[in-house]
């Protein structure tokens, strides 16, 4: 601490503060998202009777603009790698994440648009701006090169998600409250970790932290404390055990379109930020954090798989499976190298596709019953709505990692990365956990195909969400058969610049 104060005292004298060059191009995607969000709010405020379709158009336009600018402007970026006072990094790593996030958000908006059109559904115009703001936070967090910006982006996306979670009925308010309280806790941990990191290295910039730690100019012990707090903060967002307690309640309580969006997008955003913080900023501490990641991975896959197998509600089951999948991705990251990052990115994208698809189907099944996501509602789904059952089967098999789906290739790359790093016992635990998880998914398939439908249950068989689901299901299979479509892109995106 004394060293820190001395340092502050030295830094204080009246040296002119350098004015950062403001290069706004790299944050055009975020600007587009926020602009569309504000436009949506204005429309909601001034339109006499707002229409969900107008909202959808505004939102999709914003998302489209963000995706295109990220792809066109930033993929072949030749300017400075760090902009806005080194707060934001411009690299293909973040571009890939941005595009994935934008697509996930688009699916979330389409789902929500559809759900609001049902009889007796509560329609809220604020939904779309909130999704856009959350997405802006997510695209910012994946590019953030400063822990303060990471924290800022984390809060932007979290606040929007707390509100979105509460947009359903009573159970939804309860879920939002839980999410908010536990989320606030984790944010506090994260912020404390940032403070400790500053204490250890006198900077919150990721590039400066890695330089300080590599040069051993900072305090090693403070850095370890910082690392511990950051792990907790991230562990909450990626819902890794033992920080997963909120996940099942929130997934079950929140409106399904919101869950589809947040389950995929939050995981992608938080994991990309985690990779940048751990694989870049804390790279000199690799030997210290890999055991922690190892332990979190084991805990997550076992907890997630075992508890998923015990559920009787599809949304809760998918929530626990989300915990298990966080563990699988962490297993890939134990290698702490480019292979691990590549594997994790592939897994995240695969996971986004299948989880958005699975939640999309749960939104359509047994809509008129009290407990639409309970297993009982899935009895005889194949006889009732063969299309929905077939899509759900594809998503579940992919989550289980059965070839020829993308989930298998994703698991293969992740385990390959872990084993190449010498962690074959971890890979073995993961593979066995995936057998347990497979049991959880098969229970749903059994219900859909081998049971008789119960009474008068009807499914929502509208065209739009079914087409969306079909697109995702086809993607799952196509990427499972031709994974190079994706891996060739990811190969160029795995190297972090610093």
């Amino acid at each position, binding site marked *: 601490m004394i060293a820190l104060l001395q340092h502050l005292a030295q830094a204080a004298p009246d040296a002119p503060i350098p004015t950062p060059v403001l290069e706004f191009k790299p944050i055009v995607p975020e600007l587009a998202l926020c602009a569309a969000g504000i436009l949506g709010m204005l429309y909601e405020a001034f339109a006499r009777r707002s229409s969900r379709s107008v909202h959808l158009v505004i939102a999709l336009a914003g998302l489209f603009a963000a995706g295109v600018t990220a792809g066109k402007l930033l993929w072949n970026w030749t300017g400075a790698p760090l902009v806005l006072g080194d707060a934001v990094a411009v690299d293909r790593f973040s571009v890939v994440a941005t595009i994935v996030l934008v697509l996930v958000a688009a699916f979330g908006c389409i789902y929500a648009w559809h759900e609001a059109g049902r009889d007796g559904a509560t329609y809220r115009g604020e939904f779309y701006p909130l999704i856009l703001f959350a997405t802006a936070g997510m695209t910012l967090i994946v590019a953030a090169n400063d822990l303060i910006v990471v924290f800022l982006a984390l809060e932007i996306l979290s606040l929007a998600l707390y509100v979105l979670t509460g947009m359903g009925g009573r159970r939804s308010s309860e879920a939002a409250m839980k999410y908010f309280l536990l989320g606030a806790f984790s944010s506090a941990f994260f912020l404390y970790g940032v403070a400790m990191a500053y204490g250890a290295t006198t900077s919150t910039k990721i590039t400066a932290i890695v330089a300080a730690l590599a040069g051993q100019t900072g305090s090693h012990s403070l850095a370890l404390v910082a690392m511990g707090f950051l792990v907790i903060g991230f562990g909450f967002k990626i819902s890794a055990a033992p920080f997963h307690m909120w996940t099942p309640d929130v997934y079950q309580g929140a409106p399904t379109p919101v869950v589809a969006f947040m389950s995929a997008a939050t995981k992608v955003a938080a994991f990309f930020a985690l990779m940048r913080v751990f694989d870049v900023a804390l790279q000199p501490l690799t030997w210290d954090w890999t055991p922690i990641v190892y332990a979190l991975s084991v805990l997550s896959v076992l907890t997630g798989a075992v508890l998923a197998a015990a559920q009787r509600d599809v949304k809760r089951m998918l929530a626990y499976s989300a915990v298990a999948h966080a563990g699988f991705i962490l297993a890939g990251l134990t290698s702490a190298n480019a292979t691990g990052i590549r594997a994790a990115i592939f897994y995240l994208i695969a996971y986004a596709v299948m989880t958005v698809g699975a939640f999309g189907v749960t939104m359509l099944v047994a809509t008129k019953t009290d407990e639409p996501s309970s297993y009982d509602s899935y009895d005889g789904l194949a006889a009732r709505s063969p299309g929905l059952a077939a899509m759900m089967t594809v998503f579940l098999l992919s989550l289980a990692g059965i070839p020829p789906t993308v989930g*298998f290739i994703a698991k293969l790359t992740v385990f390959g990365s872990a*084993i190449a790093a010498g962690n074959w016992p971890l*890979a073995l635990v993961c593979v*066995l956990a995936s057998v347990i998880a497979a049991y959880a998914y098969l229970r749903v398939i059994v219900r859909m*195909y081998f049971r008789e439908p119960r009474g008068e249950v009807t499914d929502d068989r509208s065209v739009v969400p079914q087409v969306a689901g079909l697109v995702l299901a086809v993607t799952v299979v196509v990427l499972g058969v031709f994974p190079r479509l994706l891996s060739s892109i990811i190969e160029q995106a795995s190297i972090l610049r610093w």
Partner: protein
Amino acid sequence: MSNHLLSVVIFLPLLGVLGLVVGGRQITDAGARWITLLVTLVVFAVSLAMLGQFDSADAGYQLVERASWVPSIGLQYLVGVDGISLWLVLLTTFLFPISVLASWSVTTEIRRYMIAMLVLETAVLGSFLALDLILFFVFFEAMLVPMYLLIGGWGGERRVYAALKFFLFTMAGSAFLLVAIIFLYARAGGGSFELTTLAGTAATLPVETARWLFLAFFVAFAVKVPVFPLHTWLPDAHTEAPTAGSVLLAGVLLKVGAYGLIRFNMALFPEASKHFATPIMVLAAIGIIYGAVCAITQRDVKRLVAYSSVSHLGFVVLGLFAFTHQAVSGGVLQMVNHGLATGALFLLVGMVYERTHTRKLDEMGGLASVMPWLLGFFLFAVFASAGLPGLSGFVGEFLVIIGTFAVSHWLGVAASIAVVLGAIYLLWSYQRVAYGAVREEHRGLPDVSAREVAVIVPVLALLLVFGVFPRLLTDSIDPATARVIENVAPDHATTVVTGVTVADPASGG
């Protein structure tokens, strides 16, 4: 290289799937049946073309096709056929149209049933032909889903339980396989999953590591074969599966396990194969006797046939791990024979069940007087399965037994005893089905229909042909097995092969 025959064989069934999916509900039930039958027959024809192009003298892989699949991790699409996989492929393509024809009596969700059958065919053929370990694993795992749906969707009373048990047992076994494959790949420097490349790497591994990896591979395949004591899923799955499911499970899917042992375990870990040969042979011998004893005590005829599979597959494993020329060739031969003989038994049990609606031996009796033709075919299949000389079951068992005697007298004796036990349970069950007093409700049951004759006669004919001319098979099997033995136990390969040539049972029996 320009020849894509193997890919055509593997993926042609998927074309049928595409047709059935695109056609949707416009396809009538009869249409779905005929489309599937036609597709499987064409696949069989193409596989015969493959047989025509196969050169028996060549011990290596033939008709090889190679294409890059996922270049970033060195994954390849690499398929090829040799004397071991050749006959398993033909067995598969032969049994599929038979099974489709036998499934004419399926009446619910026919389109979905046929889609599952065709996907299963692709997965099985892919497993037999893949020479890249991950490609193999993909097909190996993909096999689970259609089989799971077939058992769970169209099976007997406890079908859901049996289907789930089948799925989880196999998947748990293959979990070890996946980790071992990736481990080997990582040791090889991460360039390729190709069998020959990884075999080179495996040879450089420390002995201990190679032995552990061998065990990981072994567990995966032992569940599938199944080797005692990992067989507990089999009686349930076989009993609850629909007739075609049982036929394919016994005839084809179990062979994938035995094939995996010979193709991967022995090729990759010759030292460990030799090291663990004795315990594995003991397990196989226990399985042979245990399966036979369990079969004797069964009252459900389908369960009886299922346990007889445990016993017969024990012969296969015993033969493979004896590492004498006769035993290994006999093991491979026994795979083909068992596929035909047990397939025939399941088909006939299915036909009997469709008429009597019971599988209980106590509730049958005297059926020979009611359905003389059907029970005549049954007797033929029973003889083939019991290993009557002149039928193909004999050749395989005989070769395995003489090959095993060269290694261990005790195991040879054990295997011989099981042959006697096999005759007991098969003939006794036949006696209880065919002779005795006819039950009142079974009078006037119809004898075989023309369709059923078309189902069963080709299988029985092949049993006879291969029984009289086993050279048809052994001529192309021998070079490939000789290569395997040379790899694992070079001393056996040189001394024994020249001593005794493949026996010709037609003259002996």
